[in-house]
């Protein structure tokens, strides 16, 4: 109007025409952001926004949450159950009854022929807690296989195992509010800006208000590393050495919290003896962090009033993942930094409901952090469900990463996959293909019919996703939050809860055990089973959870609200009530780069994608930021090999090969490349994934590869394009 038209035209801005907002919680990572989905007058989900009054995200959302409502009508969704005799046949659309009958019959046949444990179930960290609990009931109580696990083995198993070893139980002790109280933060292999942007925002806001030192341990110069006061570019796979060295300095200089150790920790002597071997000089030669820096960090951490550590896959996905977690726990125990504001050892979880599966799915035991190994736990659950306790195995069966080799060698003949995509997510794709081929019967249950693993399935169950269902999820800080049923699943796809209930009816014990229809009734059962336990949720119900925008467990029956922290009283869950200080001898068993394979292969997330892209790969406004896999490579290394920016290179390892688009950047060292793990037929064609002895989690982030220039760029582009179906 200052310039331009004298006669102003009316302004037209795109508007969503929202008539109703429905409360729900994000279904991607485990930050646990509250989202309101806006519905128009036709009842279509047209927009979404962060809930202003929710403590976790305070109105903010990351790119994935902002576009999450677009998932309801994204491409590739399944809307009819599918069936086929052989994996080389075409699928036939059919009824739920036929697929459910066929599946139940196959499970029974396989179990009758090869034994009860020859049928395996691998689920996810993505479905709702009530669904997990129901699946556990079905798997443990009706089908009765002991080879039942979640894909959380690929992401959080080391954290679970480490927590159990140190504290006697799973359950992260801290919360996001700890950022507001801490005086020193170490991020171990955790790149918040890319992986958990909202947690990053909370941390940054806290740090802007009250500056505290941020130390980042990461072999790559991530955004977080760039913003850190100290960046420790560690040699891959050697975190335990650094942790031992930090403990060494703290003990050697008498900086430990002796009163705390004495009152609350056991096995100090064995721990102290071991860390004596890891003086900073010795350690520096192994972990690549110089001795002065080690001493500096140790002193800073020990002298801080409150110090906290967070970690993600940099720790969990290594051959010493569980040990790494134990080491971080021990560092916090000897400095008295557990369960106090700003002092904690907080695993930053990956999947939205990884916590839910750990708590309630029974995949590593029985519901409510109960163990198969404990007779009392078996009896409690058996009587609650109304079955014979002898039906339960007395020891946990195989983890996901052991189930697959058992399929490969024929001990397991049938598999039910729920919301997981091993064809893209597990190491060594060629081996996974070979493994899946061996199955006599594979059921894939997923919201997307184009999930790559469906290539090998006999039956496909289409499910609802995220807010097409109703129930709760638990986030990183133990906050139970509500997913309300915003719209119905498309076509004939069904909530996972419905599928489990239908399947249960087809088994003998399914007649005896009650399988409630609604999520809130299922929640009632969980609430009952949680009474008086560490993860007490007896004070919660769906309504209260929504009102408070999520509640952190434990919340006892009479409590007003939940608890931000656990172990604040120094009482831990080992039989003696103490936390264990565990000595961590280090053996370097990684596939270290050598002459033939001179590069470390590192992998990780990008912010716009989630896991194997079945969801995010469909949404243009996310996918466009990385529509095809790429590799960060150091320009100096590339020059020697004649590899150019924005060209394809070939990767080769002892497992196989892959082509990938090259992005030259000094973000990675000369002997390392970094590749996002989200893409089918890329990084996992070459990855190794040695297993952690405690958690059975694969070491995705450490193996050796070779990189070669590709002369025929067009041919490489064709190979890459062929693998990009979405």
């Amino acid at each position: 109007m200052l310039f331009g038209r004298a006669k102003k035209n009316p302004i037209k801005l795109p508007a969503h025409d929202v008539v109703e907002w429905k409360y729900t919680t994000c279904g991607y990572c485990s930050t646990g952001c509250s989202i309101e989905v806006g519905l128009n007058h036709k009842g279509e989900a047209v927009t979404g926004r962060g809930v202003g009054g929710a403590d976790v995200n305070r109105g903010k959302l990351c790119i994935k949450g902002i576009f999450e409502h677009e998932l309801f009508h994204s491409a590739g969704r399944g809307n009819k159950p599918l069936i086929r005799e052989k994996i080389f046949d075409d699928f036939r659309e059919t009824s739920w009854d036929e697929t459910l009958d066929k599946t139940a019959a196959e499970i029974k046949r396989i179990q009758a022929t090869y034994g009860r444990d020859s049928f395996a179930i691998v689920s996810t960290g993505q479905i709702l807690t009530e669904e997990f609990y129901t699946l556990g009931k079905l798997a443990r109580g009706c089908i009765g296989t002991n080879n039942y696990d979640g894909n959380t083995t690929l992401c959080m198993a080391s954290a679970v195992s480490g927590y159990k070893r140190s504290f006697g139980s799973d359950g992260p002790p801290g919360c996001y509010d700890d950022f507001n109280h801490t005086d020193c933060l170490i991020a171990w292999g955790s790149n918040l800006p890319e992986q958990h942007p909202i947690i990053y925002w909370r941390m940054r806001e806290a740090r802007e208000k009250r500056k505290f030192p941020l130390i980042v341990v990461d072999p790559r110069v991530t955004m977080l590393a760039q913003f850190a006061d100290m960046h420790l570019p560690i040699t891959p796979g050697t975190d335990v050495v650094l942790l031992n060295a930090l403990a060494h300095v703290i003990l050697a200089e008498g900086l430990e919290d002796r009163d705390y150790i004495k009152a609350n920790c056991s096995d100090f002597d064995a721990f102290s003896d071991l860390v004596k071997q890891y003086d900073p000089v010795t350690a520096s030669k192994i972990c690549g962090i110089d001795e002065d820096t080690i001493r500096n960090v140790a002193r800073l951490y020990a002298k801080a009033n409150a110090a906290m550590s967070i970690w993600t896959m940099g720790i969990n996905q290594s051959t010493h993942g569980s040990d790494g977690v134990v080491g971080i726990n021990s560092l916090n125990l000897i400095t008295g930094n557990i369960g106090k504001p700003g002092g904690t050892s907080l695993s930053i979880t990956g999947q939205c409901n990884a916590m839910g599966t750990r708590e309630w799915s029974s995949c590593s035991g029985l519901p409510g952090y109960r163990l198969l190994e404990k007779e009392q736990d078996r009896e409690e659950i058996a009587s609650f469900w109304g079955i014979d306790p002898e039906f339960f195995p007395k020891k946990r069966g195989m983890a996901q990463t052991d189930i697959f080799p058992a399929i490969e060698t024929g001990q397991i003949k049938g598999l039910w996959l729920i919301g997981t995509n091993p064809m893209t997510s597990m190491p060594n794709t060629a081996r996974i293909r070979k493994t899946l081929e061996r199955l006599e019967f594979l059921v894939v249950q997923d919201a997307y019919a184009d999930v790559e693993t469906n290539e090998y399935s006999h039956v496909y169950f289409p499910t609802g996703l995220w807010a097409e269902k109703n129930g709760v999820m638990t986030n990183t800080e133990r906050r139970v939050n509500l997913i309300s049923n915003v719209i119905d699943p498309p076509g004939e796809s069904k909530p996972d809860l419905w599928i489990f209930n239908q399947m249960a009816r087809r088994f003998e014990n399914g007649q005896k055990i009650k399988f409630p229809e609604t999520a809130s009734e299922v929640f009632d059962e969980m609430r009952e089973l949680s009474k008086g336990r560490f993860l007490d949720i007896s004070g919660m119900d769906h309504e209260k959870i929504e009102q408070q925008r999520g509640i952190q467990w434990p919340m006892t029956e009479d409590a007003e609200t939940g608890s931000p922290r656990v172990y604040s009283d120094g009482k831990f869950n080992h039989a003696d009530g103490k936390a264990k200080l565990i000595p961590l001898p280090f053996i370097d068993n990684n596939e270290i780069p050598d002459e033939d394979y001179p590069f470390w292969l590192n992998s990780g997330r990008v912010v716009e994608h989630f896991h194997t892209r079945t969801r995010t790969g469909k949404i243009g406004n996310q996918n466009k930021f990385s529509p095809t896999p790429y590799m960060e490579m150091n320009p100096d290394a590339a020059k020697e090999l004649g590899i150019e920016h924005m060209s394809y290179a070939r990767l080769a390892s002892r497992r196989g090969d892959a082509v990938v688009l090259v992005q030259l950047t000094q973000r990675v060292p000369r002997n390392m490349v970094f590749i996002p793990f989200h893409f089918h037929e890329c990084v996992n064609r070459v990855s190794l994934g040695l297993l952690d002895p405690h958690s059975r989690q694969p070491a995705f982030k450490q193996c050796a590869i070779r990189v070669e220039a590709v002369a025929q760029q067009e041919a490489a582009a064709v190979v890459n394009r062929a693998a990009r179906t979405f």
Partner: protein
Amino acid sequence: MFEVRKDEPEYAFIPNVETPQKNQYGKEIQLVDESDALAGQSLNINGDSGVGDNPNRYKQHGFHFTADNCIGCHACEAACSEKNQLPAHISFRSVGYVEGGSYPAYKRMNISMACNHCDDPVCLKGCPTRAYTKFAEYGAVLQDPEICFGCGYCTWVCPYNAPQLDPVQGQVSKCNMCVDRLEVGLKPACASACLGGALDFGLIETTPENREQAKTKIPGFPSPEITNPNIRFQQVKTLPREMTRTDTMPLRYQRDEQGEGEYKPKAALKDTPREWNLPKLRSREDPLVLFTLISQGVVGAFALLFLGPLLGLDLLSADNNPVTVGVLLLLMVALQGFALVISTMHLGKPHRFYRAFNNLKYSPVSREVASLAVFFTLFMGYVFFSFFSLPFLHPGFSEGLKYVCGVGALVSGPVFIYAMHKIYRIQARPFWNHWQVLTSFFGSTLTLGSLLVGLVFAVGLAAQGESFAPLLTVLAVPMTLGLVLESVGLLAHSRDLDKAGGEGAAAHIQQRTVFGNTYYSRNVGLAVSITLVALLGLVGLDGLPGLLAWTLVGALIIATSLVGRALFYVLVIPTTMPGAFFWRNQGFQEHARESGLAEMPQVGVLPQTDYHHQQMERARREVKEDISRLKQLGVKACLSALRVNVQQRLQEAFSRG
């Protein structure tokens, strides 16, 4: 009004703080007084006649970006695209980055950029349709996609790549400052969504809480002198001396150690071999290559044809060679008509061509189109009276009109060429912003004009068995002059580009590497043309050998002209923002199209560069709708509406200072 939630977080509200009187460029921050006629009016957003209660409604607002903090999480881009319901291939806000240093002393600086709602909006001035308005409300520069006819000129002049041309829709759209949110005191969606503590928004020249700088420059950001953008920066952390781009734009940024430590754009250091890359000469601007060359040729040819006989070149007069002159005139009409059609079809909405006249006051495009219209009308008048004379009137009257038209076309032709050259004198495109454009355009006018006349006459005279050598000897003079003019311009251009550095120098390096063989061949072609034209003119070869020789020289001149003009369009490197590895990276876009990745819509790259078919479909549909609406209205109502409209336009044109 936009809904403010009960639990709307504090950070989403624009702080109501004091501003200085004037901004860093010396402009008043208060855009109009509360008592001004412009104040208190509704923005009429989506039919809402309410007036926002924002207390600072008439003050210039702008973005504040703390470059040290941006994590490149895409939340701002996503919030914007979600609110504005943008398809994947369009984005009002984009985050790119520059990086530098070596592992582990490596730094990446992400830059989030949208429209800067400039004090001097070059988009608004450049737009021929007046689709842009700078509002007194918040100083927002808003663009109306409905008015836009998709010429894309605003995307040329904007230094920040803010206006987005959607080839599918055939129109531009851009950041609207979320004025609906501003009306209720909320920051735009992007700033409210920022997770890194980087992007903020508020009254211009006010520094957000905990921020201490409000600079107008950071590395990678074009010079603020071009448009006086309303964005302020904080960037206090030390960056490596040299920052590079990850996109394929061959630029890097180097700290000027001798100066004020500012980062200046330089050509990227790449040992690119010298190549031909002939297929890459084709671009969206192909119609403009032909349009400019043909128009220049026609203007030149007409001047020769009109002036020739007056200056004693009797051979060129219609009295002596009526058939040849007639053929030449008709050929010129056909050529210019063809040029007009292809340049119109080049628009996103060709059926809205008439909007090109909407911004005579500011837009070089409007002026070019207007001067073209004048020239073409007069030229057509000249042609008409060359063939017909008006019935019932004295033949001298028609002859007089022909002469008047001729003189008019003679004058308006060069004016048209000058106006055409002004289009390319864009600060945001340093490769173009040089007087070489003028010498090139007038050089082509002389060369192609005399070539056109020469060849037609050579054939015509030869056909009659007459000698054409003397005529061509004369025409060789302007032809050579044109070629020399072009060459002199090019020499100076190449020298000045190297000296000036920045995007222009980078383009020139591309010219000598990626298109090196093509470029040098063109230069050799120019030199050879000059020599041959001079030689042939002097020798005065006649008959079939002469005809053959001149045809060959003509072909060479046309080829060098086409290649030269194509280079002019494809080489330009705008002073744009750095892209990311995939998003806003021309190299990836090309790869996605070649490899077929672009066929997946979620890749965010359109599979084609041209959506001519869709645009013609739309044109047909809209013209049909227009006709049926006009039919409904009736002739009388239409005429009176037209009258009102024209009156308004005229009033506007004269009332604004």
